[in-house]
């Protein structure tokens, strides 16, 4: 059920995806303003990807590494626990390896009111 929900939510946001990024969608989406921080950050990639580093930076805090211990192998969708740091802008930096051997990385941000 969780997987279906995840796929549905990501599908909804896919239309706002950046054209050339390997990341096809995220929840929260890039530049989205949300009332409160969701429990998980959802990421969907166009091709199978192994995330190797995911960091979150909040205006008032140092950058923190997000927990990728639950992610194994090359997959297209990730659900990573989010740790609330209060309202403000959250910047997410991700790095990963495509199953074609190419490294990829990207950045996006969202705002919690």
């Amino acid at each position, binding site marked *: 059920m969780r997987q279906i929900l995840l796929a549905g939510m990501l599908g909804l946001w896919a239309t706002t995806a950046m054209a050339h990024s390997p990341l096809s969608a995220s929840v929260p989406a890039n530049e989205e303003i949300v009332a409160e921080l969701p429990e998980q950050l959802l990421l969907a990639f166009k091709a199978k990807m192994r995330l190797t580093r995911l960091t979150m930076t909040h205006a008032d805090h140092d950058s923190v590494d997000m927990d990728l211990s639950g992610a194994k192998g090359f997959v297209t969708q990730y659900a990573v626990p989010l740790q609330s740091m209060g309202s403000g802008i959250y910047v997410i930096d991700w790095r990963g390896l*495509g199953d074609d*051997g190419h490294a990829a990385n990207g950045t996006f941000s969202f705002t919690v009111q």
Partner: protein
Amino acid sequence: MPDVWVFAAIATKFTLYLGILTASGTVFAQLMFQLDRLRNLAAAFAVVGLLAAALSFSLRGANLTGDASGMTDPEMLGLLWDTAAGTALMYRAIGLGLLIAGLFMGRLGQWVSVFGGILAVWSFDHIGHVAGRETALLDIALTFHLMAVALWIGILTPLKRLASTVPTFDVAISVGHRFGIVAMVTVPALIVAGAYMSYALVGTIPLLFTTDYGQALLIKVLLVGALLGLAAVNKLRFIPRLRAGDMTAAGHLAKSISVEWAVFIAILATTAVLTTNLTLPT
């Protein structure tokens, strides 16, 4: 990652091209033109290629973590090993290993070295822009393109050596003449293969002028044009004059080959930027 990492990746890729193509080209030329005294040259560039292949793989690890820790992180390197990056490294290590081993195995070893050189060149079919297209014709075009380039690079140093001492002028004339005949087939085919790959990767002529990738490709084309001009002067002027007994032509030939080397260095550097730091136009 900071610019220093991009620079390191480009410099390593350039060294990888130089090592693999020069080592492979030297053993191709050795077998094709029955040349002597090339063991140290081929072995040295094969070692350079091996070191660059290992460093290039390790730098990919740094790209995965965003810092130097990834270069030696067993988890990152293990992940990479299971992808095309690992396959390419394996072909490079085995290919260059065979190439070096063949250099110490006598007559039969020449074939072992050539096989190793082909394997190392073929490694480029497994990762990069061409590999990403998964088209057999593109793979064949890339392999042929690189083997023809390697042979051209491989003939430069032995031919320059032969044209630098009076007792070997006759051999220089013979090798230069025979390479000229081979090049009449390989060079046009090399250009056709290069043009086909450019068309397949870039797509349209306007993108050649409006994208960084296209512009870098145009620089490469201009450099290849300069190379063809130098080769034509060698074939049509210096080799015939040397053949006619004009000893001064040998000095001109040696200088012209040095300039050819410099242009090849510029071409390999441009290619390293193309394949490392520039994305294909879409």
